[in-house]
């Protein structure tokens, strides 16, 4: 402030602050007193707030506040509240017979939406967020299943897993590596037969020789007609779905070296309700049986 502070505005007769911006001067009107009281009130409020709520940073953590509030605590409360709210549904889901789940639409909706979230957290790493799988990881959207596609069969697979050392009830089967059993030409013949089984272009003469080898070596698991065996997780070789590729090169590699995947048992990490929920979710992706 300069000595010009006593400059009087002609229009209003009120003193200006003496400052001038592009020819505009500010009148020095007094503030209303209640405004000052509000200002003091906000200061008192602010002090009270820092006492009631976490505020002042200390060496290892901030002051906790008398109300003991924390945002994490609030989230925990909300999650607890939701779980309490859903407790009866969760119990019902734990006990439900999955085969007749669709007789209870409310429980089915609950299972599917819960299962979707279980799937995204635990399954999508291998099977993909859209459940389309990839080479070596089964596509869960199609109508072909290695170990069965009813809700109960899916739940069993989720619960115990496949070819793992942890769960004695895990699905288990192993295809031998025929590179150590067959000659190179024999492998080529078997591959031609498999191409014939699935209706693809093939060498008829080779396929005929391969059929003999197939009946002898492969049909025990894949079946005489090549339609596979779900008890053994042996894939159907006559359809259009291939876990490791259905072209001659891929088939040759598979027959020579053998290929199979593993899956961990999820009963150790998921609750029974979560297992059933994810089974219900996978079942309604399009291939459920």
């Amino acid at each position, binding site marked *: 402030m300069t*000595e010009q502070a006593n400059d009087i505005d002609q229009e209003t007769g009120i003193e200006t602050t003496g400052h001038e911006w592009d020819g505009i001067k500010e009148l020095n009107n*007094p503030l209303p007193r*209640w*405004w000052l009281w509000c200002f003091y009130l906000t200061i008192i409020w602010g002090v009270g707030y820092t006492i009631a709520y976490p505020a002042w940073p200390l060496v290892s953590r901030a002051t906790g506040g008398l109300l003991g509030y924390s945002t994490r605590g609030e989230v925990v409360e909300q999650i607890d509240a939701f779980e309490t709210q859903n407790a009866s549904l969760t119990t019902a889901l734990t006990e439900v017979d999955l085969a007749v789940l669709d007789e209870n639409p409310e429980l089915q909706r609950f299972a599917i939406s819960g299962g979707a979230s279980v799937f995204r957290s635990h399954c999508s790493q291998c099977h993909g967020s*859209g459940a389309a799988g990839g080479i070596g990881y089964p596509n869960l959207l199609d109508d072909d299943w290695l170990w069965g596609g009813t809700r109960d069969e899916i739940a069993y697979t989720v619960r115990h897993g496949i070819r793992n050392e942890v769960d004695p009830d895990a699905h288990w089967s192993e295809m031998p590596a025929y590179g150590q059993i067959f000659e190179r030409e024999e492998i080529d013949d078997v591959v031609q037969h498999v191409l014939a089984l699935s209706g693809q272009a093939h060498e008829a003469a080779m396929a005929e020789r391969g059929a003999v080898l197939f009946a002898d070596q492969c049909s025990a698991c894949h079946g005489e007609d090549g339609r596979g065996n779900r008890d053994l997780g042996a894939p159907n070789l006559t359809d259009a779905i291939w876990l490791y590729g259905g072209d001659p090169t891929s088939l040759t590699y598979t027959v020579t070296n053998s290929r199979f995947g593993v899956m961990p048992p999820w009963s150790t990490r998921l609750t029974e309700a979560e297992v059933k929920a994810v089974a219900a979710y996978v079942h309604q992706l399009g291939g459920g049986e």
Partner: protein
Amino acid sequence: MSSSDPPPLYAAQEPIFPRRVSGFYRSLKWWIMGVTLGIYYLTPWIRWDRGPSLPDQAVLVDLANRRFYFFWIEIWPHEFYFVAGLLIMAGLGLFLFTSALGRVWCGYTCPQTVWTDLFILVERWIEGDRNARVRLREADWTARKWQLRLTKWTVWLLIAVATGGAWVFYFTDAPTLLRDLLTFEAHPVAYTTIAIMTGTTFLFGGFMREQVCIYMCPWPRIQGAMMDDHTLTVGYRDWRGEPRGKKHENTTGDCIDCMACVNVCPMGIDIRDGQQLECITCALCIDACDDVMEKIGKPRGLIDYLALSDEPLERAGQPPRPAWHHIFRVRTVLYTALWSLIGVGLVFALFVRADIELTVEPVRNPTFITLSDGSVRNVYNVRLRNKLGEPREFRMSLASDDILRIDVEGADTNVLTVDPDSTTLTRVYVTARPQDPASTEDRTDLRLWVEDVGSAERAYRDTVFNGRAG
């Protein structure tokens, strides 16, 4: 100049005791007060039958279920653009009225003005008119003063409680909530809201009054930018009134300096000083002055709705231009046109709202699925919305000549039932056999039809079918 003390930093509120006045504008304001307060207090109690599973309150903002009901209109959250449109219309409407008639919103319809008017009315009934109130303020705190003050505060408080109470009725079923409120079973949020609204109504209407308009409200500053020389505002014809003085003094103008205009002013200003920030153009000074002018046998309109652009004309002794000349200008016509355009657009949008609301979202993760027989399947997330009070059945189909097959997840028929007042999300499959061109073509156009089984109404969405690429 340096001899004077520096101006005070803070000023106490100057008490204002508006005198009773009658006249055209006062009557108009009583009517507007009656209508606006009536709308506010009574609207939640209007009933509107929507069937058994929907609320029967005509105007209801159902936050818990995310619905807004307005008589026959029901708005869901995804239709919030209707509310946005209404807000834009409200904004443009304010622009229009401000550029034509100045702070007419402030003077007649602003809740702060309406409730303050009501509180002043109560004050006058209990404590008497201006002179009695001035005397009462100066008086010692006798039993009579306590009695008058406490009566006044009690009535104010009752109005304030009714105001806060009416507010919460807009958000849940009014009769139920009233019963719960009276039996102390209502949700704490309801009581808290009523308490806050009661407190602010009591404080703002009873004590803060003009302080709210002068210091808290941003609108007067914005309005200043919207007025121009043609805007009709309340003004004083100083060329007619000055020099002011007592009657029978021959040298004076029409103003007899009776202070009637100052005494009735709820903002505590003297309109004869010209347009000022505090003036809310409530026009009560016009009524007061006209009354006096009639009594002394002078023409009315010493204080009147004036346009600044008429001042040179009037000073030169010519009559002012007619009001329509100031009101119908390019600016106001443009505002009206914009306002109407949005209004017509909203009404149009409201009437063409589809009865079948449906979205079809093609699932792109993955783009297609190969089935065991070599068929190609695409998945579509179909959302169907039923706004009616009873369940509806919808049949999904493709165009009749389409060779592709359509299936609905979990259903043998392609009919799905949507519960009343809800939305369903369903996975719908479209399958192309290996021999169909669509199974190998990159993209095939597709039209999904939905038919209301009950009413046979149909709707469709166009989408795309992805084949095995390449």
